[in-house]
């Protein structure tokens, strides 16, 4: 295989050299700190081997924030290059690499883990379960994601980043045109983390269907959990298409097959179809959980039940179904013909209807509510106009004949950032603020959070509104520079200022987190927002086993009803006589080791080193066999220990 790394690139490029130095220094510092403070054992016992959904969720969230930083740096670099015409801050090759890693990382290694973070942190607590259905598999999902992301990120310093766009269209991404290891990195990183994503879909579907507390019928389920249910189904139906698209492209590149090549009968459009059969549902995979967050946040901070609960659920289901019928809108220009394009154009526009239903329901929830403008609520409220504009430009793009003009222009770039940032990122940040006290037992500082909010929001419009104009003026995406005198200079300059403002906003969030660790208000009640759903009936952070006794749920928003005196509040506190030994899964280091084996296979395939594949493959097989023969997988927490914990929390009843 002809994928020799450009080793020379290691030392000649200042940016890569800088990254090398940074990586080495950071790693040394981490190793030093862990050794000095004797934390290796702690790291292994508490985190690397954990199967606790709460900890896995926290790890997902930290990883997502780190990747938001990495993707954000990529974005700032690109915007710097485009600030003025004819700059040579980045050359064409670098620019290509950076938009590729930016897009790939933001979607697959920022948005996805952020979504999974909230799945993990919230769902079991919201439905009254002690963990997910398959905790061990959950750990595997996380570590596969982690090592997939790792693989993607080392590409920059070892051998060269992928540079064929986050969509990786052949024939450009085929061996003939992308002959370094970069494209292999992309394929393997996505493949490895993708396996984890499918497992997560299975896990949460089964968890939600089978592990709800007694009395919690589907129609009493909180809307966030509903959104996770819909998302899990989307993952299960969409991700296999990505798996196949990536696998076939990898076969083309490594074994010389002809699925998507220009020769011997290959058909590149087949890849593009498979990619978007996954890709369009993927945008709903990252937006529906954000919708779920908004439903929770808006109803809590309006002190009202969500308006139109049934229609909210209906809208989620409708979006999930129709979301599978729109993928061709990403390539109306393929020339599939008027009838095909018409079908997909109309299907795309139809999605605006359930989405609109949801937006109006959120507005009606706020209407006459007693609104509290906390941080999560601010992001939720900011989401509505942002998403409305993004949705409207989306409908414009869906007009197939007009799309021949917008296609691949900055109009499109502005549109999808508006929905991805205004929808997913706003939603994830709102969710992070909202459930932060539940995870860590303290609140994030309001004042710094407001600075972050305003910088990020104003920056957002300054950055992306000019790009609609640029698109209409003819600026296409994925160009690394442009000549002066086209009228593009001013909007580009403004846009770059906006990107910097957003960057400052992000830094405020980092500062806010660090500051609040020390000074943030502690959450002693477990219910700092006066919440409605079950997770707020638990202390913050929740004990290892979540619920000492599982409450019986007698209504929608049962915790809120109990606080209003409509239900018995004591039903949510454990009674001494009801406590039984609690069945829990044991920790295991195998998910971590298994994922390292996958990583080794990945490296082997990236560079065409067969022994690595063999070693990694044997490792995977060995781990799976060991697991199959393992019978001692769980244990019981004794009653005394539960009683002790609960009475220390002051929750125990008679």
């Amino acid at each position, binding site marked *: 295989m002809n994928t020799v790394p450009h080793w020379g690139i290691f030392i000649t490029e200042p940016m890569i050299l800088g990254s090398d130095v940074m990586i080495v220094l950071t790693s040394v510092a981490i190793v030093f700190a862990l050794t000095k403070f004797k934390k290796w054992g702690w790291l292994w016992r508490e985190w690397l081997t954990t*199967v606790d959904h709460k900890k896995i969720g926290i790890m997902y969230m930290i990883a997502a924030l780190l990747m938001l930083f990495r993707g954000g740096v990529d974005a700032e670099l690109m915007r710097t290059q485009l600030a003025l015409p004819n700059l040579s801050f980045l050359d064409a090759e670098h620019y290509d690499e950076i938009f590729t890693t930016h897009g790939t990382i933001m979607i697959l290694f920022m948005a996805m883990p952020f979504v999974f973070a909230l799945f993990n942190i919230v769902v079991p607590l919201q439905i009254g*379960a*002690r*963990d997910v*259905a*398959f*905790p*061990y*598999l959950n750990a595997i999902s996380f570590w596969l994601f982690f090592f997939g992301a790792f693989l993607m990120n080392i590409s920059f310093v070892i051998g060269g980043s992928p540079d064929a766009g986050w969509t990786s269209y052949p024939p450009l991404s085929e061996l003939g045109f992308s002959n370094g290891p970069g494209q292999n990195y992309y394929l393997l990183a996505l493949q490895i983390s993708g396996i984890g994503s*499918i497992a997560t*879909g*299975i896990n949460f*579907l*089964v968890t939600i*269907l*089978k*592990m709800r507390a007694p009395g919690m019928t589907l129609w009493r389920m909180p809307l966030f959990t509903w959104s996770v249910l819909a998302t899990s189904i989307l993952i*299960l*139906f969409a*991700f*296999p*298409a990505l*798996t*196949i*698209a990536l696998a*076939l492209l990898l*076969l*083309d590149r490594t*074994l*010389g*097959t*002809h*699925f998507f*090549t220009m*020769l*011997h*009968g*290959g*058909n590149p459009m*087949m890849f593009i179809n*498979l990619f978007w*059969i996954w890709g369009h549902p993927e945008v709903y995979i990252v937006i529906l959980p954000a919708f779920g967050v908004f439903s929770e946040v808006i109803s809590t901070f309006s002190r009202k039940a969500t308006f139109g609960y049934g229609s909210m659920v209906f809208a989620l289901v409708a979006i999930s179904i129709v979301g599978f019928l729109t993928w061709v809108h990403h390539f109306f220009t393929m020339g599939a013909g008027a009838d095909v394009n018409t079908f997909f154009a109309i299907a795309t526009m139809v999605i605006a209807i359930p989405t609109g239903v949801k937006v109006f329901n959120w507005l009606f929830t706020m209407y006459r509510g007693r609104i509290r403008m906390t941080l999560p609520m601010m992001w939720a409220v900011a989401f509505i106009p942002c998403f409305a504009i993004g949705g409207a430009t989306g409908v414009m793009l869906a007009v197939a004949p007009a799309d021949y003009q917008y296609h691949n222009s900055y109009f499109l770039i502005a549109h999808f950032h508006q929905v991805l940032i205004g929808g997913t990122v706003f939603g994830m940040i709102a969710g992070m603020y909202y459930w932060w006290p539940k995870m860590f037992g303290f609140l994030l500082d309001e004042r710094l959070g407001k600075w972050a909010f305003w910088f990020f929001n104003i920056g957002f419009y300054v950055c992306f509104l000019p790009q609609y104009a640029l698109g209409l003026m003819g600026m296409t995406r994925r160009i690394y520079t442009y000549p002066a005198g086209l009228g593009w200079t001013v909007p580009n300059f403004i846009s770059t200022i906006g990107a910097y403002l957003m960057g400052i906003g992000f830094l405020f969030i980092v500062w806010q987190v660090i500051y609040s660790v020390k000074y943030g208000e502690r959450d002693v009640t477990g219910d700092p927002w006066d919440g409605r759903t079950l997770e707020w009936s638990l202390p913050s952070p929740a004990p290892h*086993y979540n619920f000492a*006794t*599982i409450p019986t749920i007698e209504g929608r928003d049962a915790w809120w009803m109990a606080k209003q005196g409509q239900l018995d509040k004591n039903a949510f506190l454990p009674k001494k006589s009801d406590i*039984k*030994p*609690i*069945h*829990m*899964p044991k920790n295991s280091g195998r998910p971590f080791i298994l994922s390292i084996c996958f990583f080794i296979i990945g490296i082997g395939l990236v560079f065409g080193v067969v022994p690595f594949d063999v070693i990694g493959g044997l490792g995977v*097989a060995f781990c799976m*066999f060991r697991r*199959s*023969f393992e*019978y*001692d*997988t*769980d244990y*019981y927490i004794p009653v005394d220990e539960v009683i002790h914990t609960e009475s220390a929390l002051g929750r125990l009843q008679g």
Partner: protein
Amino acid sequence: MTTLAHNNVEHHHGAGDHVHVDYPERPIEYQTQDGALKILGFWVFLATDLILFACLFATFIVLRTHTDGGPTGKELFDVPIFTAETLILLTSSFTGGLATFEMHRGHRNRVIGWLIITALLGLSFVGLEVNEFVHMAMEGATMQRSAFLSAFFTLVGTHGCHVSLGILWMTGIIIQLFQRGITPITARKVYIVNMYWHFLDVVWVFLFTIVYLMGVM
């Protein structure tokens, strides 16, 4: 792994093979809560695997005429061979079913016997398939020759890999049956591997029809 919603567990796990039963009234593989969850989880997994195959089928159908002047299915496929493969796999699905049947009647040795027969049938299926592939490759019909052959080898090969994996998996379960007999846990394993095996049979029926029968027509 085990699950956590046990609200009303009365007694502790002893060491060894004592298995805590949540639902004694159910069929043995469903008697632990964990078992019931895993069976449902596996159904869901099969649904995603089916979609995986659907994507490969779609690719094959798009590319099946893209032979680039090279060999076509009609020239390559050998009717007796793929008919034999089909019969063997269908029979193995039946013997796998008999294993489940004996499991419910509590006959450990018969379960093991039927599983061994199933695995051996699977092995002969894989043998025939490998043989077929090698023959085709020797005639110059390699997966690099044309898009049609790339799609053919990948689709049929993916199924073959699934079957091979199933054989290894079944072997592991046979060993566990020897060690532990029929318990709610081993019963669940037998049940799930059989679900997998039947699923591969269903996929093969489509392969037989779409790849082979339509190929030689």
